[in-house]
C-alpha cells in the first residue's frame, strides 16, 4: 500500500486528479489508515494505469467508467458495454496499425540519416512539408 505522493511519482497523475477520480467514483473509495491518510493498493494502481492508458487513447471518462466495469467483470457485462469494448478494441487496433507505420517510417528515415554522408533525408523530408 502506498501513499498518494508515491502514486503521483509512479504514475505521473496529480494528487488533485487522484482525489477527483475517487470523488466521481472512477476509483472505488481508497483505503484510509487510522490518521485518514489514503493508501493505494496494487489493484488501485492497476485501475489507475488502465485509466491513464485509456485517456491517452482519447476515451472519455464516461467510456472509461464503463470499460472499468467490463474489466472488473467481463462475463456479466451488459450488451451495451460489450459493444463499447468491441468498438474501443477496434480503435486500439487501428491506433496500433498507425503507430506501426509511423515506427517503420521513422526507422527507415533514421537508418538513411545514419548512412548518408552528405545530409539527412529526414530533414529534407521535413523541409518538403514546410
Amino acid at each position, binding site marked *: 500500500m502506498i501513499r498518494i505522493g508515491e502514486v503521483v511519482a509512479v504514475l505521473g497523475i496529480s494528487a488533485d486528479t487522484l482525489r477527483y477520480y475517487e470523488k466521481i467514483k472512477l476509483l472505488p473509495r481508497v483505503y484510509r489508515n487510522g490518521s485518514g491518510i489514503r493508501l493505494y493498493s496494487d489493484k488501485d494502481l492497476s485501475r489507475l494505469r488502465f485509466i491513464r492508458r485509456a485517456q491517452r487513447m482519447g476515451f472519455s471518462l464516461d467510456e472509461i467508467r464503463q470499460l472499468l466495469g467490463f474489466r472488473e467483470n467481463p462475463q456479466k457485462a451488459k450488451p451495451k458495454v460489450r459493444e463499447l469494448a468491441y468498438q474501443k478494441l477496434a480503435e486500439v487496433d487501428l491506433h496500433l496499425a498507425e503507430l506501426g507505420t509511423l515506427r517503420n*517510417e521513422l526507422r527507415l528515415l533514421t537508418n538513411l540519416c545514419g548512412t548518408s554522408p552528405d*545530409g539527412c533525408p529526414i530533414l529534407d523530408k521535413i523541409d518538403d512539408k514546410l
Partner: protein
Amino acid sequence: MTTLIVEVMTASGCIRCKRAKALAKKVIAELDDDRLLYREVNVIEELDYAVALGLLSTPAIVLNGEFVFSSLPSAVKLRQAIFERLG
C-alpha cells in the same frame, strides 16, 4: 505478356545504391528480355510505398512489388530471383 518490374530502392547519399543500380541494369541487359522493366525509386519521394514494403534501409531490390533483397545481392542471386518470377 507478363512483365516483371525490377525496382531499385535508393536514397541520396547512399553509396551502395549506385552499385545496386549498376547491378540491376547489367543483369537486365544480359537477360535481354522484353518482359523486364527497370525503375529507380527514391525512397524519400515514395516514402509510403517504401514503408508499406517494409523497407528499413537502402539499397534494396523489389520485384513486382515484392521486397526481395534487403541488401546488395550477387548477380547470380538477382538473376535467379528474376527467372523464378518470370516462369
